């Protein structure tokens, strides 16, 4: 179960009114995203591919794909404004205050250098360790992420290690500089379930040991539910629901979250049908005005299709929703009998 963070721990990451455009500014892909991650807290961004969760996380890392840009809003890491950083500013930040882990770890490591060298290089360059100190520290880190025989692994090339081992290596590189925030973008997606569980355990363990804040991005609600204190559900470039994990799972405040829960079949649904959400999410820039989920929503009412964007509004203690009918609906969460309005 997720750890509860100290209530008023300092904010590590604060994202405010973020808007991201693609196609060189012509299309809006993400709008009105605001959230905070406090020290020791873990926050999960969940949604289908194209929902904007990865763009949001990439903008925090400063690695938006070509043609994509932050058009509005701010993102602060501690007291550093990320959206205003130049190349050198990012270089100072990454590896030291900001670490990242991605899907397909093999591709994020240089295939022609040993993993040890890649782990030790920033230690020498950024932390000024000597060659032997860096080596020692690297081996220590490899051990700390649960790799057996770290001295052996140190001399291995990426292609000589399994996917799970590579993800551990990547985690080691990400936490090598003792960052305040660790971003994990679909970090367990390509792994098989057993390894996935191990890597998630490792992330939870590192968070507890080092007190780092974790921003986890995944399309898999089950993964996010296992690790995160707080969940943000993305749909068509917007945050549609935000709240503490347990509450969101138990009683979703947005029909899309309910549908996701049904698809993910978390908990014990009496009838486990093959659940799908009808229709497809709108393409970036082609979302309907009003509620963007309305066309696929079984609870859609005329007031959902207004010509104004639906605002994200409070829905109880520490919770927000973008559903117009949130107050009228009693949506089904996990472990409950299905209740419809």
């Amino acid at each position, binding site marked *: 179960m997720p750890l509860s963070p100290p209530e008023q721990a300092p904010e590590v990451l604060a994202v405010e009114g973020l808007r991201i455009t693609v196609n060189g500014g012509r299309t809006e892909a993400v709008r009105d995203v605001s959230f905070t991650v406090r020290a020791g807290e873990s926050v999960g961004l969940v949604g289908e591919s194209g929902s904007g969760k990865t763009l949001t996380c990439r903008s925090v*890392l400063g*690695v938006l794909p070509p043609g994509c840009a932050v058009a509005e809003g701010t993102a602060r890491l501690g007291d550093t404004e990320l959206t205003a950083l130049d*190349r050198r500013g*990012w*270089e*100072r*930040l*990454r*590896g*030291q205050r*900001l*670490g*990242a882990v*991605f899907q*397909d770890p*093999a*591709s*994020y*490591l*240089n*295939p*022609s*250098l*040993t993993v040890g060298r*890649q782990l030790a*290089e*920033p230690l020498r*360059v*950024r932390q000024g360790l000597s060659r032997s100190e860096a080596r020692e520290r690297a081996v220590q880190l490899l051990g700390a992420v*649960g*790799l*057996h*025989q770290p001295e*052996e*692994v140190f001399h*291995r*090339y*990426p*292609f*000589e*290690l*399994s*996917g*799970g*081992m*590579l993800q*551990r290596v*990547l985690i080691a*590189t*990400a936490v*090598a*500089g003792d960052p305040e925030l660790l971003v994990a973008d679909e970090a367990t997606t390509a792994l*098989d379930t*057993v*390894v996935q569980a*191990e890597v998630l*355990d*490792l992330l939870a363990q590192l968070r507890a040991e080092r007190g780092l804040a974790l921003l986890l991005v995944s399309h898999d609600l089950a993964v996010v539910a296992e690790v995160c204190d707080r969940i943000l559900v993305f749909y068509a470039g917007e945050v549609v629901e935000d709240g503490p994990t347990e509450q969101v799972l138990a009683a979703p405040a947005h029909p899309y979250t309910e549908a996701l829960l049904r698809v993910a079949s978390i908990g014990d649904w009496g009838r486990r049908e093959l659940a799908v959400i009808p229709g497809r999410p709108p393409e970036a820039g082609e979302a309907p005005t009003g509620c963007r989920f309305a066309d696929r929503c079984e609870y859609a009412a005329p007031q959902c299709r207004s010509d104004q964007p639906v605002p994200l509004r409070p829905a109880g203690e520490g919770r927000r929703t973008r559903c117009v009918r949130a107050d009228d609906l009693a949506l089904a969460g996990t472990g409950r009998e299905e209740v419809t309005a």
Partner: protein
Amino acid sequence: MSAALPARIARAPKPLAQGLLTTATVFLLASVLTFGLGALSSANPGAAVLGDTATPADIARMNHQFGLDRPLPVQFLSWLGHALHGDLGRSWFTTVPVAQSVWQALPVDLSVAGLALLMAVLLGGAGGIAAALSNGGKVDRAVTAVCAVLGTLPAFVIAIGLIAVVSVQLGALPSGGYVPFGQDPVQWLRFSLLPAFALSLEAAAGIARQLRTSLVGALRENYVTGASMRGLSSRRVLFGHVLRNAAGPALTVLGMSVPMLIGGAVVTERIFNLPGIAQLALQAAQEHDVPVIQGTLLVTTSVVLIANLAVNAGLAALNPAARRGRRGAAASGDPVAISIPEGATA
């Protein structure tokens, strides 16, 4: 929790030994071709050397001295055997040992070709990197255009142009001649600069083009993001990581340009009046001096083969997969490599 280490690093199948074997085979075949070409000669060296007044008996005796009355396979084996011991026979006309002439000419070629190679790497490397970094921009288009022009301009036209401008018009550098490096390095450089530059441009264009292509590809790779996420500066990422992975194809192009620089430089040597192997071969060709022709061909081929070996060694050094005997796995991020499950949690 733990992750057990797979004990499955394949033992490397001695790529160096394999390369040497292939090279030896190729050398043998090339020597057969070289000798065979000589054997096709209809020249009658005895008659040519002794002149019109010689009697048939004298000519026969002379040809016997040259060993030309023996069966061809015997001649070949004897020729190759001597060649492997550094004896390439004697010129039919000057009776100077071929090895001696070649030995005098070879340093000229090697030093000029070496300088040309250096220039090609510097020019091509800088051009390729600049083009890749400005991918699609002005610099990229300029480099691409220059490379396209250089690809169609033969080295000797460039050489003539250089002489016309640098030597004749500006009088900056000599238009021809040579001073050995050991004798006077500065003079050597003055005489070598123009021919080396003329020779280097085509190779430089090839390297720039290849490097641009592979760099543009490599810069899109995830490991570039990975490296910069570790906090490495973009310069460090480029030179320490990307260039290393993108250098392979450019190195191959470099290797392929070695024969062009050493043996294909005949015209350039002639234009700049360099006393190199090609000049030696040219003179021998005009005199139908078969031993000299064969000797120059064999030595040039050997130099090319050695250069190829060096390039392959360089490629192997760049590619850890090949070094550990797993072909191409590193390049493709071979999913087959990810076959060993992690150990159970402890």
